[in-house]
């Protein structure tokens, strides 16, 4: 049964040095507040997993918290490069970053395999592409029925998955709405999970057409962190700050401005600082 606790406690108990950590969110509901708490608590040697590592992973890489990363698209969506990621890969700053690169289809299938307790995922992929030449974890299997050769990738089994969601009830049942991404699979694939939420309510409202519910007994910890997905967004609560994504390009381009930004906005900040973003005009809800 999920325990409802503070974010600091949740991270303290569930994220350990050297862990394989997935912080998922497909543009929507990215767990920024939780990622900042991981940085503040000084976790080291993390192996980060995420389909679309964006600004949050740029921050974790830039502070040197990551030894490696498994991913399928690493950029600042709609803006351009991740400069801290590039600095790590191109110049090994602040430390070398081991990368394991896949396609989206491979990552999505690998999370599903993890959630389904299978050792690997098979899919029709990577045909004619160069990634299998540089990633030893892209192999193949032959279908025992048809003889077709399929791509195979190992299941993703994070030590801990961290996500953000709209609501939880007092029993720790979690509701996700809107673009639901790969969060359900990432939580079910992991040994432990932390979910930060906009609200804790007595009753989950009737689910909307695209909602996902994670039952409290499948989640380790729930923490109430309003605004915790900023500068990404929480559908029905607040919009994405495209302006911040654009501004990040300038902040992250330079090592010193990046370090100063982290000092001021992460190390000297706390989860409650995200609450002011939650008060913004709610995003248009269909």
């Amino acid at each position, binding site marked *: 049964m999920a325990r409802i606790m503070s974010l600091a406690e949740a991270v303290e108990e569930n994220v350990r040095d050297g862990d394989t950590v997935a912080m998922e969110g*497909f543009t929507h509901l990215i767990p920024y507040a939780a990622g900042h708490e991981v940085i503040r608590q000084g976790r080291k040697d993390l192996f980060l997993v995420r389909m679309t590592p964006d600004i949050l992973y740029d921050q974790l890489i830039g502070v040197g918290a990551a030894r490696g990363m498994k991913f399928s698209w690493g950029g600042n969506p709609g803006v351009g490069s991740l400069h801290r990621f590039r600095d790590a890969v191109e110049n090994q700053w602040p430390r070398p970053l081991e990368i394991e690169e896949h396609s*989206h289809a491979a990552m999505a299938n690998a999370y599903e395999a993890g959630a389904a307790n299978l050792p690997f995922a098979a899919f*029709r992929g990577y*045909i004619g592409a*160069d990634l299998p030449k540089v990633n030893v974890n892209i192999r193949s299997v032959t279908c025992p029925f048809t003889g077709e050769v399929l791509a195979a990738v190992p299941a993703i089994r994070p030590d801990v998955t961290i996500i953000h969601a709209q609501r939880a009830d007092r029993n720790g049942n979690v509701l996700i709405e809107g673009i639901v991404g790969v969060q359900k*699979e990432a939580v079910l694939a992991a040994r432990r999970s932390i979910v930060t939420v906009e609200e804790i309510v007595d009753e989950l409202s009737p689910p909307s057409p695209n909602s996902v519910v994670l039952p409290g007994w499948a989640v380790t910890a729930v923490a109430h962190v309003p605004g915790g997905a900023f500068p990404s967004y929480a559908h029905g609560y607040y919009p994405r700050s495209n302006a911040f994504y654009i501004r990040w390009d300038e902040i992250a381009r330079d090592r010193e401005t990046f370090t100063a930004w982290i000092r001021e906005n992460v190390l000297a900040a706390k989860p409650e600082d995200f609450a002011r973003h939650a008060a913004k005009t709610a995003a248009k809800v269909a």
Partner: protein
Amino acid sequence: MTDFTPTEMMTIAAARALSNDDVCFVGIGAPSAACNVARLTHAPDITLIYESGTVGTKPDVLPLSIGDGELCDTALFTVSVPEMFRYWLQGGRITTGFLGGAQIDRFANLNTTVVGPYDHPKVRLPGGGGAPEIASNCGRIFITMALTKRGFVERLPFVTSMGHGEGGNHRERLGLTTSGPTRVITDLCILEPDPETKELTVVSMHPGVARDQIAGNCGWPIKFAETVIETPAPTETELVVLRDINARTKKAHKAAGKEAA
């Protein structure tokens, strides 16, 4: 004739490639603009799908990112990312994929991974995302990107997604049953693969563009088809629709920016 920019011509020519019956997997940026212009002009019932899981979306403004709330708000339905890639893309339900890229070669293979050696890249690009499987699992692929020497290269340092491979029947030899790239739309011209060799060949030149301008912007000795037509200039309606959606997009993103600042 109304004035238009090369980028406007590219977007409109790309939009025209789509039809009402298409079920289209949309990449962000130029493809997204083209697909929505098609929807707002000659293809009102086109189905637009973004890899974030939104199916049948009708955004009023163009998304800055692949998972903007606008896409979900206006979609017929939204699915998880694994479902998107397994049932809808791999399931063979998508007729057309629309891709862009950092680099392309003469057989329409695309690179969005690295420039330079993979282990010591000169430039680390974002990576493939959905592209490797979009390129193989959609019925056919359209590509849109500006024609430049940096983008249209003799040899790709890395093949992120396969177009026609080494040309000829390379796709068939790998067991692919889909058509692969059938059209590349640039700001100067439209290219299509030669039926036999699959080498990209200029089939249509945009108004006012000269052959040496095309040749001078391409990183390989570019071929022209026997008959090269002139791309019809944008119509008044096409330009109005494109400029309107661009203006709405700019305004919406600016407003969102102010609010969040």
